[in-house]
């Protein structure tokens, strides 16, 4: 079995099993740790729409804060957009997803993907540098924070290398790229990459809690 065969066969399967297993474990485990129902008299009763409102409104900082966190705000958007475009609109990736989902969607030209991937990589490196140097971020960071950056950075870099056929043979680069994605998938449920799943419930619960008090979250 070649490296590529391992990466696109058993390696991928194991990574997916762990990925799915870990996510359900963590989500179900947190959800079942239910809170007691709040029986104080609500000021507003439409908490569902307040919850959904928070999912939306927390995507951008409140006016009083915008200036202070502009760097995170801008880099945050740049990073997530560039990443999602690179991941979701590169033709070979779509074929990868199609092989499990059974459907596909239009792709973007490779040149654009190359640009977004480079932007994503550059922004992530900038965020890594900030984490390592900004007094607060450096101080509060733990291994999870760095691991989570690295397991995402490596697939990006290997992806760009594989795309440009740079540094080694294509099949080796492709295999390494796949393996790095698998490492990311395996780490995903255990580290803070889980925010991809948890963001919506977390914001939603904040929205409902603030909403029933009549405060915009």
């Amino acid at each position, binding site marked *: 079995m070649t490296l590529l065969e391992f990466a696109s066969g058993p390696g991928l399967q194991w990574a997916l099993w762990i990925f799915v*297993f870990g*996510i*359900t474990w963590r989500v179900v*485990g947190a*959800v*079942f740790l239910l809170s007691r129902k709040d029986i104080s008299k609500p000021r507003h009763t439409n908490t569902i729409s307040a919850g959904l409102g928070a999912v939306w409104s927390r995507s951008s900082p409140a006016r009083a804060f915008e200036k202070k966190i502009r760097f995170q705000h801008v880099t945050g958007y740049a990073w997530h957009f560039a990443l999602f475009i690179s991941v979701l609109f590169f033709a070979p990736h779509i*074929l990868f997803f199609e*092989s499990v989902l059974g459907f596909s969607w239009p792709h973007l*030209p490779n040149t654009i993907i190359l640009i977004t991937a480079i932007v994503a990589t550059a922004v992530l490196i900038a965020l890594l540098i900030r984490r390592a140097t900004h007094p607060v971020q450096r101080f509060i960071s733990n291994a999870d924070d760095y691991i989570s950056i690295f397991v995402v950075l490596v697939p990006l870099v290997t992806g760009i290398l594989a795309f440009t056929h740079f540094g080694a043979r294509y099949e080796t680069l*492709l295999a390494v790229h796949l393996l790095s994605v698998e490492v990311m998938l395996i780490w995903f449920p255990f580290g803070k990459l889980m925010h991809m799943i948890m963001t919506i419930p977390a914001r939603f619960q904040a929205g409902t809690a603030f909403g029933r008090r009549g405060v915009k979250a």
Partner: protein
Amino acid sequence: MRKDQNLGEYLRMQGVSRRGFLKFCSATASLMALPPSAVSQVAEALATARRPSVIWMSFQECTGCTESLTRSHAPTLESLIFDAISLDYHHTLQAAAGHGAEAAREAAMEENKGEYILVVDGSIPNGNNGYSTIAGISNHDMLIEAAENCFAIVAVGTCAAFGGLPNADPNPTGAVSVSEIIKDKPIINVSGCPPIPVVITGVLAHFLTFGTIPELDALGRPVAFFGQNIHDRCYRRPFYERGQFAETFDDEGARKGWCLYKLGCKGPTTYNACATLKWNQGTSFPIQSGHGCIGCSEPRFWDKGGFYDPISAGQWGSRDALLGAAAAGAALGVGSALAARARKKKAQAAEEI
């Protein structure tokens, strides 16, 4: 043709002019990726080269490789080179049969001890030696015997080089490549299913010219021919970059000659000279004729997913397994949450001021 004739004499005898010969030499040089300045050197070497003795053995094969070499039209460079060697044994081509043929083989081996080149096509059944025999001798034994005193082995075709089709899962005959049996001789893998004829002759030309083994890649293939992948040399590459793909074999994209990646082309992971040398005297090659590369020059190309599955498709495993993983995760989640809630209850119940 006499054995002691050298190649130059032989070619003149065949009516090949000096000019034709030089043309042949420069073609050979460029084939071996030598600079133009090397042409005279090649000509010199080839003109005075002694015709090497070649013993050709066919094991578990389909004869496609031999066909590939011999079915070329009219007198070609390949056939010239092919004629230039002294093919002392080839049981498909030779007139002799049975004991006479075997005797010829033994005689040639004895006469050219340590100097003959052993060409093998087909894989060797290693499960049960009885699967393939010649004159009652198993392929395995014949290979060992023939390899013992050879100068080098050329494994022609993916079967001989890597096991090929007979080796495909579940490999009923236990087929293996030459290199899995012979460990102490130089082996040159000329893979392909079949290999490009020019590549076979190119390797023989290298022997004739330099008397040495050409530079090989990690899979034992001559770098001069297998150094670059199809994708990097493919004329459809601009469409790949632009994201223009044929979706089916008869759609607009297919008609316009767009990239075949989505239709399963294995060009990006396949190393061969198809896209540069092409087939049938440079007429065309599979991608040019509208079909993706199936990766025939790579080990185990039969077993690497479907020919029509894109390279980036993954083997995701069954949905049931994924559901099972989710169920296990959910169970663990519920269990851990219940345990945590019990702990919380206990803490709340504990009276302690």
